[in-house]
């Protein structure tokens, strides 16, 4: 196994970029490189994290401007090549705007920003992003967003469900899923989804925020450990 080469993309207004570098290091012992959004040519990274924040101030619509940054054509190129791409929060929003992931993220149901721990149920534990979790495992991971309600056409939703591409659902602490468990009003309680090929995932919750004991929990570590394994060649894509 070789160490995966990892990048964290920095847009103007990204604010979880350094947090992801820090948690990636804390969990895997490896470094990740910060990549500026104006880059037009990237080396063949094995893993690219598109971090949270307010890229371009979230003006116009979350992620709508960031998708035109030069680096995004490189992210698309590497995704097509089979590199792993993880979008967290604003990163998820950017990946949906870039059509690398289905659906769209809309204003929270109660119209307020929400920052708190939520419980998630692992719906697909065989992906490159979740292999370290058990199917149905309940995780405690924070959300922090104003526009996190995932939405899509019923056809898209059905396709995701049929192809096992719903990765996380908001749930009650006992693992049961009902609409009030989604803090943002997400369709079908969806918190994270995969692309068709299974190498691009977006999620609204922040696994990097609970990846060290001192922060109050480690349920987020599994995402990074799964990625480490997959990007090191442990998983076939």
């Amino acid at each position, binding site marked *: 196994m070789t160490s995966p080469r990892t990048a964290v993309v920095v847009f*103007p207004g990204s*604010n979880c970029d350094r947090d992801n570098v820090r948690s990636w290091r804390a969990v895997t012992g490896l470094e990740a490189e910060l990549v500026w959004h104006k880059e037009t040519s990237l080396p063949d990274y094995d893993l690219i994290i598109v971090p949270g924040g307010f890229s371009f*101030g*979230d003006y116009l619509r979350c992620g709508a401007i960031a998708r035109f940054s030069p680096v995004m054509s490189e992210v698309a190129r590497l995704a097509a090549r089979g590199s792993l791409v993880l979008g967290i929060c604003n990163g998820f929003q950017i990946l949906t705007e870039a059509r690398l992931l289905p659906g769209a993220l809309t204003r929270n149901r109660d119209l307020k*920003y929400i*920052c708190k721990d939520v419980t998630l149920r692992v719906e697909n534990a065989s992906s490159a992003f979740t292999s370290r979790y058990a199917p149905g495992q309940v995780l405690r991971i924070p959300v922090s967003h*104003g526009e996190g309600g995932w939405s899509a056409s019923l056809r898209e939703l059905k396709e995701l469900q049929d192809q096992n591409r719903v990765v996380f659902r908001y749930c009650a602490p006992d693992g049961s899923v009902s609409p009030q468990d989604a803090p943002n009003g997400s369709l079908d309680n969806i918190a994270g989804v995969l692309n068709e090929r299974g190498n691009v995932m977006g999620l609204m919750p922040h696994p990097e*925020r609970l990846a060290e004991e001192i*922060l109050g929990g480690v349920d987020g570590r599994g995402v990074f450990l799964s990625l480490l394994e997959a990007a090191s060649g442990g998983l076939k894509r």
Partner: protein
Amino acid sequence: MTDIIGPWTEHGLTEDEHARVVELLGRVPNRLELALFGVMWSEHCGYKNSRALLAKLPVDGPQVLQGPGENAGVVDLGDGLAAAFKMESHNHPSAIEPFQGAATGVGGIIRDIFAMGARPTASLNSLRFGEPDDPRVKRLLNGVVAGIAAYGNCMGIPTVGGDLQFNPSFQGNPLVNAMCLGLLRSDRIFRGQASGPGNLAMLVGARTGRDGIKGASFASEELSDHDHDKRPNVQVGDPFMEKLLMEATLEILEAGLVVGLQDLGAAGLTSSGAEMAGRAGNGLRLDLERVPLREEGLSPWEIMLSESQERMLLVVEPRRAAEVEAIFEKWDLQAAVVGQVTDDGLFAVRLHGEVLAAVPAELLTDKAPVYVRPQKEPAYFRRLRQADLSAVPEHRDWSGLLLRLMAAPNLCSRRWVYEQYDHMVGLNTVLRPGGDAAVLRLPDSRKGLALTSGCNSRWVYLEPRLGAAAAVAEAALNVAATGARPLALTNCLNFGNPENPEIYWQFAQAIDGLAEAARRLGTPVTGGNVSFYNEYDGRAIQPTTTIGLIGLLDDVELRTPHFFREPGDLVVLLGRTLEELGGSEAHRLLTGRDEGPPPSLDLDLAAALNALLPQAAALRLLRSCHDVSDGGLAAAVAECCFPLDVGVELDFRLPVSAGAAFFGESQSRALVSLAPGAFQAFQDLAAARGVPTTLLGRTADHGRLTMRCNADVLSLELAELKEAWSSALPRAAAL
């Protein structure tokens, strides 16, 4: 004394002040110069009514690297690390336009922090509103919290704490006091000085527009019903622009490209330019045609007084200018050379080479008149001390009273507020909001930093000297409760019109109390802000001396949460409980009145407790520690039970009435839980420091909160109490 209406009037100067300008200048100032004096000598910029008294505050200590007078104070944290922190008010803008007013308050204080070369790491805020049953108050509450959230969240700076109180005195004049703390290397403190004649002045960040013109003067007047037309005085914030400005600024500072810098806040280019020149003893010449404008046709005085947000003034050596421009270009920001440092001491404004104004910088910054106003003890002061305080002791339905109290606006859960703030970004928040103080871990260090901000406004009103001292003592105890040693403080002093002798008496008394407590508790004042004229239609607010205080944990792993951890632990009360119900939440709930003398403060006991708690934490004797304050012992117990749903079975005696035992707010008390095996060692430690202990009972697994004091019983189902506490604020805030 009646003032003659002259050209100075529109700039907020009195006839006497104008005469002083003429005398100092040796000539009559022109209109633009008059405008410069008007804003620089306003209370907001010149502190003319407060400067003399503020000199009483203790500002020195071995930990202080930078005291008052700069953009922010700086204290040493050891290991080559330092913290820059400061607090400021944005009360009037928030009263007129709550979302933008609060947002730009946050933006301003953040700029003060990165102007010192520090990376902003955490924010706090202390808020005051009228009673929330008023729809106007609901709108203010929602707007202010959303505005703070919008700005801080976008910046990626966690908002980790603060306080919130409701009182009718704030109905038309809410308080928004925002604090920010940043981390920097202790050998890399930057200052707002225009050093080196010949160096360039560069204006960076947003373009200059017409917003917020004369905001500083507006802050120095009372509010009234006719203030809707002052909305154009309120600036509009752009947190995205500020995020870029912050990153670019930190990048140029890291590269060592800047001699001095300052943010543009109140009075915009005028105050930042004059202050930077004044501090360095130099002059500064500005060429206004070089200032990037948002729109055509701004007049020179508009450019000089604009309070457009997200701008900084840098002083740069000419040979470095190109590098500075390149970094700002990377962040898609403008950096324009707008002037030069001179050696003639003059703050000069030119337009296409024509000199429009030229006055010695020090006249603007250091020669504002200093007023020590007449003082008069307010009529209410003695009257309210004579209050009948029997309502609580005679109430007897202790369970019912606690249930109502925990759902009261001042005591219910603040979750509705802090869940709108991103309080985790940055991955440093290791004790989250909701406890006594937030705790941050420090990068590349074992240490931790505790932060809090707050004040009991009612106590400051009832007895300003005692109330201000109590605000310091409680903030220090909040920090000590987490296991940290109190280190230093900043403050925001909110009062009514200082020209009213009764208000000025409140202010003078409060300064004395603040000074005395800060000195005795070893927490020097590293900076602060005074906000006068907090009145609405002639009614002054309850004076509020908000204290922002930080403390240091030598080992962040020793941090102590405020809540009970598990059943079977011993619960111990520290400190002395006296028959003190004056100014209490319970008395107000039952009578609707703020009255009676606030509880006494023994600063020696406070200091002993502040030393005991970190020591006990370091010995790992404590499972939890919470200060006993608003709502008294019963409220403190409830707050310790809620987070992990741990019940209690307490049975104890105290030498006071049951009402005072449950709901009295005697100061310098803390509620701790500890494993039974740790009790003896802890008691010995407390005894050695002269801190009285009372064993109250144990935590329990039965889901009830039961307290027996003397012959009286208070007992409630925890779930019912928690529901009342949790649901109250969302319900009160609902529009």
